[in-house]
C-alpha cells in the first residue's frame, strides 16, 4: 500500500479509539475541509490525588490514510498521560510512534499534535488561539498562519520551503507564498542563532579564541556564504556551531581541520582541538 509502513497501515485499517466521547471534558478541532483533512479529538480527564490524567480519548478524522493513522496513534499516546505530560506531546512523538511517515504526510502528525493541545486548552478553559493582529495568514490556499510556520521551522529545525510544506502544507498549492515562507525561514534561523548563549571567556587565551573566531575566521567563511559560532571552550577543546552554507558542505570536516583549527593552533595554542556541535 504505497509508501506506508506496516504500523501506519495497521492504524489506518484498524484505527484505535474511533468516535466521540459523550459530554467530553475537552474538544480539539484542527484542519478544515478546504484543506482536505480535519480532526476532532475529544478527551475525558480524571483527577486522582490532585493529578489530572487523560482517562480516555476518541477521534474523528476526515482525511487520508496517514491522517487516520496519526489520529489513532495520537489517542494511544494521549490516554493515560497526565495533562502536563500530554501537553508536551509533539508531532515528532506521533511520527516516532508510527515508525515514520512519508515526508509529504508529516503534516498529518502536526494536525494530531495540534488537536491534542487544543483539547487540553479547551479543558483548561483557555481561549482558543485566535489569529491575532501580530499573526497573519501566509498560505491562503491552506490558511496557514505565520505563527504556525514559525513554530514548525523553530521546533523541527526546518531549513527549506519543501520541508515547511511537508509539515504545514503551506506553499503546497499555488506556490504564491513561497517568497514569504523563505523570509520566515531566514528570520527564524537568524533568531535561533541569536538565542544561542554567548560564551563568556574565562581568561585571556579564551578571549583571543573568541575574538579570532568572531572577527577573522567567521567572516572568512562568510565570503563563501558560510559561518560559525562559538558554542563552548573547555580547556583545549573548542566547540563551534556551523552556520549557513557550511552546514550542508561536503567538505565541512576539512574546513574545520585545515582552516578553523589550523588558524587557532597557529595563533593561540597548538593543542587546540576544534569540534562541531551545538
Amino acid at each position: 500500500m504505497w509508501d506506508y509502513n506496516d504500523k501506519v497501515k495497521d492504524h489506518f485499517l484498524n484505527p484505535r479509539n474511533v468516535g466521540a466521547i459523550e459530554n467530553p471534558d475537552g474538544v480539539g478541532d484542527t484542519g478544515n475541509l478546504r484543506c482536505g483533512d480535519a480532526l476532532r479529538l475529544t478527551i475525558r480527564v480524571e483527577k486522582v490525588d490532585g493529578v489530572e490524567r487523560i482517562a480516555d480519548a476518541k477521534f474523528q478524522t476526515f482525511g487520508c490514510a496517514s491522517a487516520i493513522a496519526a489520529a489513532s496513534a495520537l489517542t494511544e499516546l494521549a490516554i493515560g498521560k497526565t495533562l502536563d505530560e500530554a501537553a508536551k506531546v509533539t508531532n515528532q512523538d506521533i511520527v516516532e510512534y508510527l515508525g515514520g511517515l512519508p515526508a509529504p504526510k508529516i503534516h498529518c502528525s502536526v494536525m494530531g499534535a495540534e488537536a491534542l493541545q487544543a483539547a487540553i486548552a479547551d479543558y483548561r478553559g483557555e481561549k482558543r488561539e485566535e489569529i491575532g493582529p501580530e499573526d497573519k495568514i501566509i498560505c491562503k490556499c491552506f490558511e496557514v498562519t505565520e505563527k504556525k510556520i514559525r513554530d514548525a521551522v523553530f521546533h523541527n529545525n526546518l531549513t527549506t520551503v519543501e520541508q515547511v510544506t511537508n509539515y504545514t502544507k503551506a506553499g503546497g498549492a499555488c506556490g504564491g507564498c513561497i517568497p514569504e515562507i523563505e523570509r520566515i525561514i531566514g528570520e527564524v534561523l537568524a533568531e535561533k542563532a541569536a538565542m544561542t548563549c554567548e560564551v563568556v571567556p574565562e581568561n585571556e587565551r579564551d578571549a583571543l579564541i573568541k575574538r579570532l573566531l568572531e572577527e577573522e575566521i567567521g567572516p572568512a567563511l562568510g565570503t563563501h556564504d558560510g559561518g560559525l559560532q562559538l558554542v563552548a571552550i573547555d580547556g583545549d577543546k573548542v566547540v563551534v556551531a556551523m552556520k549557513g552554507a557550511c552546514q550542508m558542505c561536503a567538505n565541512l570536516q576539512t574546513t574545520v581541520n585545515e582552516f578553523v583549527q589550523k588558524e587557532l593552533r597557529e595563533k593561540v595554542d597548538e593543542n587546540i582541538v576544534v569540534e562541531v556541535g551545538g
Partner: protein
Amino acid sequence: MDRVIYLDNNATTMVAPEVFEEMRPFFSERYGNPSSLHSFGGNVHHKIDEARRRLAALLGADENEMLFTSCGTESDSTAIHSALDRFPDKKHIVTSAVEHPAVLGLCDHLEQRGYSVTYLAVDEEGRLDLDELAEAVTDDTAIVSIMHANNESGVVFPLQEITEIVKQRGALMHTDAVQSVGKLPLDVRKTSVDFLSLSGHKLHAPKGVGALFVRRGTPYTPLLIGGHQEHNKRAGTENVTSIVGLGKAAELAAEHMEDEQTRVQAMRDRLQEGLVAHCPDARVNGGGSPRLPNTLNISFGYVEGESILLLMDELGICASSGSACTSASLEISHVIKCMKVPEMYAHGSTRFSLSRYTTDEEIDYVIEQVPPIIARLRELSPFGRG
C-alpha cells in the same frame, strides 16, 4: 494480492491477448530495421504500413495522414509546436482548463516563453461554453487545442461544433483524443480537425506508442528531426513491435466499438446506479453531460479519496481519485476544481473506468463492497452527521 478488479482503464489498459500475439514475432524473430534494403528488414516495413492502414481505418483517415509517435504527449507537443512553427507571428493559444497535463504543462511552458494562452473554463457539468470559445479565438490565435473527452470526468466535448468555430476563425484545431479513440466512434472526415492525438496504451496496445493524425494540407513541422522515418514527419527508428500492436489494437477497437457502447456502458450505468443507491450522499460528476461509455466519476461526500482507494485496494479493486492527498501537489484535481464540485464532495471524488474485459460479476462485487467502505469511513469522519 489474489484478486484484481481493474477499474482504472483511463489510466492504462491491459494489452489485449490478440495484440500481444501479433507483437510477439517482432521481438526476437523479425527484428529487422524497417529502413533496411534487405527483405528481412523491408518485410517489417510492410507490417508498419499495415498497422498504419488499420489505425487510419479506425478514424476514417487516409493512411498518409497518420504518423506514429512514442506517446500521447509527444503527439500533443508535435501538433502544437508544429502550428507555432508555421505561424511565427501568431502568439496566442486557446485551450481548456481541464486538459491533460500533456497540454497544460506545455501551455505553461509556452507562456513563460512569451505566448499568451486562454484557458476556457467548464461548467458544473464539465461542459464548455462555445460562445466563450468563439470569443477567445482571434487573428492572433495560432492553434486551439481542446480534448475530445476528459480523462477524469469522462465528459465528451462536441468536437464537430468546436472545430467549426475554430476553423471559421482561421486557427488550426488540435484535439487530444487519447481517451476517446477506441471508446467512441470517431470519423475525421466528419470534422475538419487538423490534428488528433491518440495513445496506444489507452486502447489495449502497449505503453510507449502513440499516433498523430495530421490532415492532408495542414502546415506541419516535425518535432523530432533527423532520419527520413514516418515519411519525414518523425525521425527515429520505428518502435516496430508496439506499432504493430497499436495497429492490431485499432482493428480490435473497431470490432468492439458496439460492445463498448452497449455492454460496457450498461455495466457503467449499473455501477453508477448501484453506488448511488447504496451510498447516501454520493453525486455523479459530469453525469448530466455526454460521457465516455466506460467512465464513472463519483464523489462520496464527507470522506476522503485516498482512504477510499486504499480500502478498495485491500480488496483488489483498482480505481483512482481526484483528492488532494493522492496528488503530488496537495491540491484537488484541476478538473474537479474547475467543475466546482462542492468541497464536502471534492475530496471524495473517485473514478471508475471500465473496459471490454470488465465483467458483470466484477461490477456486482464493487457494488457490494464499496458501500461498506464508504460507511466505515463516514463513521470515522467528523462531518456529515447533520
